[in-house]
């Protein structure tokens, strides 16, 4: 019997360590309802886990935002010129 099966005997309970392993499925909304409920119960009373979850979510979103700030302001005009020179008079293949 897996550790998860053991947990299920008395309903799912999540401690700090278990929470780490569940984070991916939690933020991707792939946890079963009972596990998600146990996860939510835990973070409702565990400030360090709330902070960790927030950081886990925040880092990829912040990476996206930071990369978008690096787009050159003249990329669009350069790209349209580049493409126009090559495909403007062509029709997409079907």
């Amino acid at each position, binding site marked *: 019997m897996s550790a998860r099966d053991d947990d299920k005997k008395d309903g799912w309970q999540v401690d700090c360590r278990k929470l780490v392993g569940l984070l991916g499925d939690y933020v991707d909304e792939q946890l079963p309802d009972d596990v998600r409920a146990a996860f939510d119960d835990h973070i409702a009373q565990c400030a360090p886990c709330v*902070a960790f979850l927030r*950081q886990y*979510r925040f880092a990829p979103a*912040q990476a996206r935002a930071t*990369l978008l700030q690096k787009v050159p302001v003249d990329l669009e005009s350069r790209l349209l010129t580049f493409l*126009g020179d090559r495909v403007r008079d062509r029709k997409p*293949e*079907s």
Partner: protein
Amino acid sequence: MSRDAAAQPNEDEALVSAAQAGDYPAFEELVRRHQKNVYALALGMLRNPAEAEEVVQETFLSAFSHLGTFRGDARFSTWLYRVASNHALMRLRKKKPEPQGDSYDLEPRLSTAGASPFDALTQWARRPDDALQSREVEGALDAALDRLTPEDRSLILLRAFESASHEDLAHQFSTTVPAIKSRLHRARLLLRQLLDEGLRGKPPR
């Protein structure tokens, strides 16, 4: 001015139909709507502005050439970012492997941190709006992204930019869905940890 493409997928569909029929200005509008995200995704994966711009060019040339084969089974943006990531991944695979994040020892740090592995965390994600403006966060994120392996960066960014499905990612990385979920989770943990360390001023290991 082009509108937010992510918020207007139905308009993408109309533009694609027009472009497929030979309406070049419709294709140009698709370029305007998506070029920033494609560039940012490529830059994040490749970490090189010149190469990122080449990938953007290749992506939209490919998109134009193969637009006729796009049937609308997925969103146009999903299809486009898949094209972009394929171009970026091809470039990454031609390069020599770099000794980066794979050698970073994540699990032992989590398992030896005591009863709670979350002690002494900084509060850098408390106010993301403030952090968005922070040069400190930007610098720490750049350093953290540099330390991840190209594949881990790619997984995180494909998920962040287009919510690529686990099935799509598994296909692109030639592995299984459980394997990709595990790797994505580990990559996210590592990015969080590297960013945390960067913001706390720990020297890179």
